[in-house]
């Protein structure tokens, strides 16, 4: 909705987007086991669910390229909405690429239950839902209230949200690879967890404050 509006052309490859959405839904029935690769499943199950988890990148990629094609063939009007769409794409793609990594079962055995997964899931969820929802908020606000939101303040909020989010969640990949497990309230000192956790905490405060302001 937002992409064709601001590109001022109908969506390129609309049928492909619909097919890709159906394909994603279909594949989703066969990939949920990637959350439980370490529970002692038979090798054949891991192989099938690993393949499905990686194959979901195909329809998702098709959708993303249709969005990009629409923007390329259109006459784009820059707006805060589109900035949030771009941020959503950039973030979701990082989450998707780390998703392909953890879909590879041997790597998942190493990364399972660490902060790497916390970083991955936030990139998927925030890129796939939160940034597009904020874009939708900016898009529909004038329709409901009859007033346009400030583009200048929106741009400031956008950059603060983007920086805050990345400062909070990107170091978690590293923290996880160093070996910090998830769902712990404390950790031993001297293992290299302190600095990335401090950076994440600063980013989280920025993100929280800006969300409250925005």
């Amino acid at each position, binding site marked *: 909705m937002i992409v064709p509006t601001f590109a001022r052309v109908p969506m*390129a490859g609309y049928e492909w987007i619909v097919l890709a959405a159906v394909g994603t839904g279909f594949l989703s029935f066969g990939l949920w086991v990637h959350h439980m690769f370490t529970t002692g499943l038979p*090798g*054949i199950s*891991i*192989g099938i669910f*690993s*393949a499905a988890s*990686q*194959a979901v*990148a*195909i329809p998702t*990629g*098709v959708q*993303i*390229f*249709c*969005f*990009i*094609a629409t*923007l*390329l*063939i*259109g*006459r*784009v*009007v*820059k707006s805060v909405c*589109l*900035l949030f769409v*771009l941020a959503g*794409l*950039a973030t979701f*793609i*990082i989450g998707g*690429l*780390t998703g*392909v*990594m953890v879909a*590879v*079962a*041997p*790597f998942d*055995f*190493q*990364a399972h239950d*660490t902060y790497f997964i916390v970083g991955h899931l936030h990139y998927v969820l925030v890129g796939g839902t939160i940034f597009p929802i904020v874009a939708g908020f900016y898009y529909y606000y004038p329709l409901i209230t009859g007033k346009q939101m400030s583009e200048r303040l929106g741009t400031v909020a956008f950059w603060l949200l983007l920086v805050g989010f990345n400062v909070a969640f990107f170091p978690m990949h590293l923290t996880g*690879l*160093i*070996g910090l497990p998830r769902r712990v309230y404390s950790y*031993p*000192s*001297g*293992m*290299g967890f302190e600095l990335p956790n401090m950076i994440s905490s600063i980013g989280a405060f920025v993100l929280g404050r800006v969300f409250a302001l925005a």
Partner: protein
Amino acid sequence: MNELPSQSTLDPAGSGAEQIANLFYVMTSGALIIWFIVVGLAAYAILVPGKHNVRLTKRLVIGCCGNTCFGSSGTLKFTSCFCHRLRWWR
């Protein structure tokens, strides 16, 4: 400061873990290339407005789509190898 043994994935203690660490570095390199191409294309489309060449657009987008499918067929190949290896482990 305490000196505790490393439990990092990137500090492998055996040959199997070393292979997985190498796999991570390979996947990270690939991921960086893909991210820069796709996000670069999206940023170009938004930040450099104006009607772009339709033929070039088709080439870029279909090329990227093709690479997605081609890359994924590689994934399927990898998965079949993985199943095969698992059969031998057991």
